[in-house]
């Protein structure tokens, strides 16, 4: 059984041929996901289980004067009510693990349950456990909280003003030069990156384009809401079942937040219904654990959609300024960027990653990038697929398009001329290894869409745009344990939660290395007691890093099989060769299956294992082409045709590489055209539902054409580059550049929603 469908074009820049890698098997977990049998976090129900719910702040910024839960506690069916008083004082501890280590635990703790003050509309204030969710919901209404309402600060440009209300009274800016500010403010951190002489670079330029861009807050929009079930046993063992991007990260956060020994915490990763960076941290797990401890019962908690939108970690709104200088013949001489991102109610936005990406597709001799992490009265922001890169490159790719228009240079030719390539500098990083931006741009140029003139229609405003995107990808730590069964099959335990087919992409690398069929590998996502340390599924790292661990584990298993056969065949282990899944020496030979049988008779059961923390992620580039039609009356932008080109290094599991590309495009199109948190002046979120926070439906987008480019990553034995994140980066700029082509408008705010486009068209007329 294999996937037999329209195979998208693939452009190889290498000569490797593989047996398993690059094929299209059915994913191992597919069957239970099409029958409804797969078990996600909310599907668990334990005997004696109670249901927990969270009381949330109705205000964006307020002091908590008092909390009186006595009426709630008296309600029949209510077992416990907790507030921040029930969480241990974290002191000065810093976070470890996860995507953003080194932040004060006190902020994470206060985000879990507000301590003295609420920092955003929806901030958790108290939690209740009751016999069912309806009684828990009734109990929330009986908790009396007295607030002293304070002025909210919602946008970075207001929060950075000297006279702005300070949200965290003891927050002193960590400055780029390593010093700390003397006075508290809302700016948690400043960063500065420089290369060359930016002033001299701008002096050499014939044309300087300097533009400002602003951004609404957007949410990752995973369809499964957050959930957690905890069972705190009387001996202190804590079992947690949850849908998280990282079971080990949840374990660490529980240890940090609850002051509980890590050895007593056992986290079981359930299937996860999407994450995109938004499920890399705990929200409900510590509350369910505390409620379980207090009641002596397992406690299950699940957010509703309004909770998810109000109180989890959307990705920042904010501000980006990009200034670029070029010569008349189209060579970039200098770039300057200034990025200020919402951290939300507590410090720690993704602005640093945005800084690193803003000019990444180009070899720019002189550049300066400044970043600001700014606390505002909105939910604590988090990663969303290539975090920070989409904002940054929307700005820079729009400016590049304007430069090309002004100088009348073809946008493909301009990007090819200025493209970053192997050996060029990267901001705050070693020079680029082999990368594939040029190869992606060439593939886009040669694509069916680029080669087909845009079809005009009388009275219709249509346009075409192109944009590049970069995301650096992440290594982090991954573990794999592989057990050879007596029939030659392999049970593969891995620590990475599987959000989109990585069980199979990891297993395929194992099968390739050991020389067995993919159907003979049974990949299992294991719990924190059953496999080695594994960081979050994020940073496009699983097929890269966990795949590397699987490759290494297969080599470990090969060595163990060879040692076992050496005894049987009376040869030295290093005299045994392995090719195409067959071990041979001295006239003897055995396939893996035969070897497993021989070794079983000797009582030998090889277990290959590996834990690895690779750092040569390689970086990923994408080039996208969008054709749009702009409705002059309504301002609605329709995507007519779309092509996504991406360097996958080597595409291990092509249908799911295409899937990542297509999914990233549609998320990027939603960000480009519709999605945005809408606040009133008091900081209330007005659109906390999936009707009003409108994500693209099947009817809003066309089929997404994909072209996989393979420029192998020299930092991985099979050349893998992570593919998950970069496809969200180019769409807003590609669409904006197409809108300009159609209308002559330069849009400077995301989303380019119908009212904004309509207003811009009206202003133009």
């Amino acid at each position, binding site marked *: 059984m294999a996937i037999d469908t329209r195979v998208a074009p693939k452009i190889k820049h290498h000569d490797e041929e593989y047996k398993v890698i690059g094929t299209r098997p059915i994913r191992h977990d597919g069957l239970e996901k099409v029958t409804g049998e797969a078990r996600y976090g909310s599907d668990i129900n334990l005997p004696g289980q109670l249901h927990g719910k969270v009381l949330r702040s109705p205000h964006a910024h307020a002091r908590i004067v008092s909390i009186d839960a006595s009426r709630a506690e008296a309600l029949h069916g209510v077992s416990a009510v907790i507030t921040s008083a029930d969480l241990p004082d974290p002191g000065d501890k810093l976070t470890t693990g996860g995507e953003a280590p080194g932040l004060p635990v006190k902020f994470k703790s206060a985000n879990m349950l507000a301590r003295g003050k609420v920092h955003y509309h929806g901030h958790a204030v108290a939690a209740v456990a009751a016999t069912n969710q309806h009684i828990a919901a009734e109990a929330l209404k009986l908790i009396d909280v007295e607030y002293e309402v304070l002025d909210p600060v919602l946008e970075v440009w207001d929060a950075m003003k000297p006279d702005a209300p300070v949200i965290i009274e003891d927050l002193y800016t960590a400055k780029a030069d390593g010093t700390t500010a003397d006075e508290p403010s809302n700016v948690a951190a400043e960063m500065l990156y420089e290369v060359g002489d930016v002033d001299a670079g701008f002096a050499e330029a014939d044309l300087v384009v300097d533009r400002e861009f602003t951004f609404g807050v957007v949410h990752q929009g995973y369809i499964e809401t957050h959930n957690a079930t905890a069972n705190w046993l009387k001996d202190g063992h804590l079992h947690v079942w949850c849908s998280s991007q990282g079971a080990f990260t949840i374990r660490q956060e529980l240890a940090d937040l609850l002051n509980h020994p890590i050895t007593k915490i056992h986290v079981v990763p359930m299937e996860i219904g*999407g994450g995109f960076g938004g499920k890399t941290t705990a929200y409900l797990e510590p509350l369910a654990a505390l409620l379980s401890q207090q009641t002596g019962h397992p406690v299950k908690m699940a957010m509703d959609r309004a909770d998810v939108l109000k109180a989890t970690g959307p990705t920042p709104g904010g501000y980006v300024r990009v200034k670029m200088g070029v010569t008349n013949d189209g060579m970039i001489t200098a770039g300057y960027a200034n990025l200020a991102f919402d951290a939300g109610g507590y410090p720690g936005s993704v602005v640093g990653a945005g800084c690193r990406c803003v000019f990444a597709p180009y070899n720019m001799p002189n550049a300066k990038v400044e970043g600001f992490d700014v606390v505002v009265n909105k939910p604590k922001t988090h990663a969303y697929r290539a975090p920070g890169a989409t904002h940054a490159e929307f700005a820079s790719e729009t400016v590049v398009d304007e430069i090309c228009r002004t100088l009348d240079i073809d946008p493909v030719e301009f990007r090819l001329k200025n493209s970053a390539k192997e050996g060029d500098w990267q901001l705050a990083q070693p020079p680029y290894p082999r990368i594939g931006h040029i190869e992606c741009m060439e593939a886009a140029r040669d694509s069916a869409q680029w080669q087909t003139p845009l079809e005009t229609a009388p009275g219709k405003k249509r346009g075409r745009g192109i944009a590049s995107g970069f995301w650096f990808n992440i290594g982090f730590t991954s573990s794999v344990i592989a057990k050879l069964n007596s029939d030659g099959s392999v049970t593969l335990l891995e620590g990475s939660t599987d959000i989109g087919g990585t069980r199979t992409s990891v297993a395929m690398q194992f099968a390739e290395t050991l020389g067995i069929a993919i159907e003979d590998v049974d990949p299992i996502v294991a719990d924190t007691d059953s496999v080695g340390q594994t960081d979050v599924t994020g940073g496009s790292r699983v097929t890269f890093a966990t795949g590397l661990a699987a490759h290494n584990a297969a080599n470990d298993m090969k060595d163990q099989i060879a040692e076992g056969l050496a005894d049987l065949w009376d040869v030295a282990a290093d005299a045994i060769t392995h090719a195409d899944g067959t071990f041979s020496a001295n006239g003897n030979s055995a396939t893996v299956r035969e070897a497993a049988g021989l070794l079983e008779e000797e009582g030998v059961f090889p277990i290959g294992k590996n834990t690895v923390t690779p750092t040569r992620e390689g970086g990923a580039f994408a080039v996208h082409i969008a054709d749009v039609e702009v409705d002059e009356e309504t301002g609605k932008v329709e995507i007519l045709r779309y092509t996504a080109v991406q360097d996958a290094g080597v595409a291990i599991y092509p249908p799911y590489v295409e*899937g990542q590309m297509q999914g990233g495009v549609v998320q990027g199109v939603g960000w480009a055209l519709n999605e945005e948190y809408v606040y009133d002046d008091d900081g209330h979120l007005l659109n906390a539902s999936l009707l009003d926070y409108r994500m693209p439906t099947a009817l809003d987008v066309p089929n997404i054409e994909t072209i996989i480019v393979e420029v192998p990553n020299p930092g991985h034995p099979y050349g893998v580059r992570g593919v998950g994140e970069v496809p969200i980066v180019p769409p807003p700029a590609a669409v904006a550049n197409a809108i300009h082509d159609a209308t002559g408008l330069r849009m400077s705010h995301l989303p380019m929603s119908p009212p904004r486009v309509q207003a811009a068209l009206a202003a133009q007329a």
Partner: protein
Amino acid sequence: MATEILSGKVHVQTTINGEQVDFLAEPRESLLEVLRDHLGLTGAKEGCNNGNCGACNVVMDGALVNSCCVLSVEAAGASIETIEGVASPEGLHPLQQSFLENAALQCGVCTPGFIVAAKALLEENPNPTEYEVRWWLAGNLCRCTGYDKIVRAVLDAAERMRAEA
């Protein structure tokens, strides 16, 4: 009506995937809650609880519904089909097979809803155009796939089902 009130709960008799089922529910509980929490049929998922995402789709008396927007007592006397009833003992439904072969799922949490919705479409229109598939499935949100492979899988399944019919 096949209902009887017992100590604040309502006794409901219904048919689910061809089997007669009895349950007790509070009148405020939705069909989705009863399916998931009382009957162990957790294939239908809660994504929004207000009818905007389609993850809880079931078919009730031949109509595609969001089970989060149906009160459980409304199931009395009805015939309900859930994702758990789509495959037969002989094997997967062509839509399920087609979703696997077309890589039409990533995280998988919206998949049961899409398959139930697509099955309802193909029963009404065995030969839909791509536009008709997209229009019908616009009530189901998927955040992972960008819909491309889902739409192809439904068209592919429709073709197979027509060939077998």
